[in-house]
């Protein structure tokens, strides 16, 4: 049901019955290593190319989630997923392996919540019994496409971010036990004219602020309604900028309750500069870490705002600025749910 301008409130509250997160070697050294279902110590995952390794990440996460939910892959009606590589081939090939009816979605690093919002919408209206949704990225494959060859010695400025290697998926169903998706706000493209591909956090912050504001306004709730508002991959700079922007717009958020997936995933000592990014960043943190915390009862209501920078190497080279987007999904567990 549409509420306000661009927020869906789901009357049937679709359930996230199972989630899974797969990570690479860098994530294994990170802060959230315990929350992954599977960690690889080799970036290649034994495959011939990084793109193939990327595909394997998605497949593994999907199989893990289905096993946890006790589902055969034939029982899952739809797969809604995406990644960052050209034409989304890793996800396409994973969909070939999985053999499910498939909707490929692209929202850059906001793909995870875009997929979750769509899945919740479809299941809420009886469109499916089970939908598998997720997002993934592979550090080396993404670097290869968006930046330089992985072994190229180009110094990254302190504003740069580290692309997460991993995949996070969730299975959404109209019934079952687990955290429930209660609302979702679809973001619009916001472009504040920043053009530095090594400062994505700064570029994406206004998009996150725009979506958070719209969400709170549409639902007519206060920021304190949520135990945690978590942004996708704004990093250190983006988080600070968005926090200040929100305050400037009169939305007071407790700093403790405003976190960023890109800052949660790694340890302080890891050389990630401004934080993590990538489509997998919000996916593995929400589906791996936060859903687990909700199940443990530590968090009751969270708002996950995945942010995406909709650029390509081509658009950057043609001096285009970076258009950004953010999608917000409210997940609640316990209490009145």
């Amino acid at each position, binding site marked *: 049901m549409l509420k306000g301008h661009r927020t869906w409130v789901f009357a049937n509250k679709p359930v996230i019955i199972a989630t899974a997160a797969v990570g690479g070697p860098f994530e294994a050294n990170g802060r959230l*290593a315990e929350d992954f279902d*599977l960690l690889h*110590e*080799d970036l290649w995952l034994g495959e011939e190319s990084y793109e193939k390794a990327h595909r394997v990440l998605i497949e*593994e996460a999907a*199989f893990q989630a289905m*096993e946890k939910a006790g589902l055969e892959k034939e029982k899952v009606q739809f797969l809604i997923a995406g990644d960052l590589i050209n034409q989304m081939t890793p996800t396409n090939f994973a969909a070939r392996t999985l053999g499910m009816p498939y909707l490929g979605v692209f929202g850059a690093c906001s793909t995870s919540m875009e997929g979750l919002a769509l899945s919740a919408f479809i299941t809420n209206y009886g469109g499916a019994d089970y939908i598998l949704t997720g997002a993934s990225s592979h550090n080396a494959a993404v670097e290869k496409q968006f930046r330089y060859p992985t072994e190229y010695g180009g110094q990254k400025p302190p504003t740069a971010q580290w692309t997460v290697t991993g995949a996070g998926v969730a299975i959404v169903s109209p019934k079952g036990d687990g955290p429930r998706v209660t609302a979702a706000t679809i973001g619009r493209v916001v472009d504040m004219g920043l053009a530095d591909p090594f400062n994505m956090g700064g570029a994406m912050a206004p998009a996150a602020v725009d979506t958070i504001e719209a969400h709170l306004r549409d639902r007519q709730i206060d920021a304190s309604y949520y135990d945690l508002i978590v942004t996708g991959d704004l990093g250190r700079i983006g988080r600070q900028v968005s926090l200040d922007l929100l305050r400037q717009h009169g939305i007071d958020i407790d700093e403790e309750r405003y976190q960023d997936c890109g800052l949660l995933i790694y340890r302080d000592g890891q050389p990630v500069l401004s934080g993590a990014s990538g489509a997998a960043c919000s996916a593995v943190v929400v589906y791996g870490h936060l859903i687990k915390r909700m199940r443990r009862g530590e968090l009751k209501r969270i708002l996950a705002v995945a942010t995406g920078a909709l650029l390509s190497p081509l658009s950057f080279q043609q001096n285009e600025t970076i258009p950004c987007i953010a999608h917000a999904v409210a997940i609640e567990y316990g209490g009145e749910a």
Partner: protein
Amino acid sequence: MAARQPFPGFAEIHKTNGLMEMKKWWLAAVAAIIATSGCAKEETEQKQSLQRANLLRTHTSGTAKHAELNQGPAERAVAYLRQRDDVRDVVAVNSGDRLLVAYQIPHMKRWSRKQIEKDIDHKLRDMFPGYDVVSSSDLKIFWKTKELKANMDNPRWDERKFNQEIRRIEKLSKEQT
């Protein structure tokens, strides 16, 4: 590493033992290269200081022992270059109508190396009109000429061999990049 639950029949954690082996091998190779180049440098310096001693000796004892190799012109060239303030070190040999002069320019004057070279070449040609003069400020030529001079006392060296060596150095000095 934590939280690894291999999925039966599907997921496998791929170890990188083979790669590690290779890494070790390469490291050893790199270490060897560094070690050898380090030694080489040391040797260079040692040898050079030895040569300096040699040069001193040949200089004081005089090189005119061999009647067929009268080093008069070479000594005159050395004497001339020694008094120039844009020459730090000099060594010269002559044989027949060939005069080979190698010198080093003080480092801060190397900026105008080309002009100094040209100037010295002109001056030497004027001083020794009957000679085919080859002069160079190149370090390699300097080393070679020194070596040659040190070998002059070697009884096994005859004039033919000596001339051959001079021609070789000459060719070297004319080589361009």
